[in-house]
């Protein structure tokens, strides 16, 4: 298992070298979006309108942070469960999104899309939202402010700690439950 320091925007070359189990420290700008924001992004796409951020080379973080207390750029900000965005991810990968960040399993369709369009799925530690917020140095709502915690935020991250769960070669890190030994 290798360790990489990567910057956004992410390139095909950066993605191709990654294998499930690798540790990545990501720096640059990532964008938060979860259920409600994805729905709105798709409404914009379907209407042929411009998206609030550039998809090419982008990393979308499935997160709805807690409010920023005074003196901090953001509140607690760990990943939400990714499968709820599975219906959206393949199209976003086809339009240039390189990475999604979340926790939990992805569908066959998302894994296929990552192979086809050179994408990666990163896991961040679920339930470590206070700790992860330390790697977010700036955060600004750039779209859908009315969604509150679900608004799209541009987040400037510095060495955000990630684990490659699914790589673009079909590799997967999650273990299969041993139902035979569980009795």
């Amino acid at each position, binding site marked *: 298992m290798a360790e990489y320091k990567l910057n956004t925007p992410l390139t095909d070359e950066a993605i191709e070298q990654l294998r499930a189990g690798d540790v990545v420290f990501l720096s640059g700008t990532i964008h938060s979006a979860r259920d409600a924001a994805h729905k709105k992004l798709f409404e914009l796409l379907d209407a042929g309108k411009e998206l609030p951020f550039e998809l090419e080379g982008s990393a979308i973080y499935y997160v709805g942070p807690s409010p920023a207390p005074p003196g901090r750029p953001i509140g607690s900000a760990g990943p939400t469960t990714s499968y709820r965005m599975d219906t959206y991810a393949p199209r976003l990968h086809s339009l240039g999104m390189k990475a999604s960040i979340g926790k939990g399993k992805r569908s066959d369709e998302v894994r296929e899309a990552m192979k086809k369009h050179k994408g990666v799925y990163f896991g961040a530690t679920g339930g470590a939202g*206070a700790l992860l917020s330390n790697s977010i140095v700036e955060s600004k709502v750039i779209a859908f402010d009315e969604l509150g915690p679900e608004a799209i935020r541009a987040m400037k991250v510095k060495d955000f700690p990630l684990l490659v769960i699914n790589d673009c070669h079909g590799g997967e890190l999650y273990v299969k439950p041993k139902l035979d030994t569980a009795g």
Partner: protein
Amino acid sequence: MREIQGKDVVEAVAAMCMRANTELPQDVRRRLEQAMAEEDSPSAKEVLRQLLENADLAHDTKLPLCQDCGLAVFYVEIGDDCRVVGGNLRELINEGTRKGYADGYLRKSACDPMTRANTGDGTPAIIHFDMVPGDRLKISYMAKGGGAENMSRVTMLAPAQGWAGIKKFVVERVAEAGPNPCPPTVIGIGIGGTFEHAAKIAKKSLLRELDDTHPDPAVAAMEKELEEALNALGIGPMGLGGKTTVLGVKITMEPCHLASLPLAVNVQCHSQRHEEVVL
């Protein structure tokens, strides 16, 4: 009749919401430390290390342990010989929830199920009332995050399926949930009652201390058997493999209809955020 002031309820509820979201319970910390010592896998150890560091940071900064501060769930036991003055108890608990989620910079996660519009203040809380002997008011709070709650299920087994059927359903549920609910999880199980009651007692089981032992030796043995079976799944912390898939299994069992064997499995994430107060 002993009187309890409404404003004391509001203050106590607000304080519980803030404390539970920023302080990892001591029983959970002990169990995570024990798991870290027992795990051989470096990735399992690293996840557990991060969770303990996260707890220290939340304690120091008062940032919530997790950005998902949950729906606020309350189990309330009202003594027969006390009464709350200065407001309706349900409203007072909701007022305390609003105050706690606002003052504590906690995320408000309650929304309309169809429009998905956020209610904006973390309410309405989910409140279960019960009448008990005595002159005290006991309020237990749980921050119930969506990720783990989504992995929970209720089923109506046939009585003939018995213990084997219960065990199979629980093991398959946790296996299917895999990494999604933030393992190592705590599993609350309700056996018996009716469709809705099984779910209610499954969730109430999550208020127990992780290192307690069920007073009924038969139920304690069932909890132990399930815990061993679930940990044998090898899902491990965050689904990366390991010995610790669950931190505990807590069962509540109550009589049911002759024709039924209701079973509810309520999954709770590794932080097991809960608090209680007696007024």
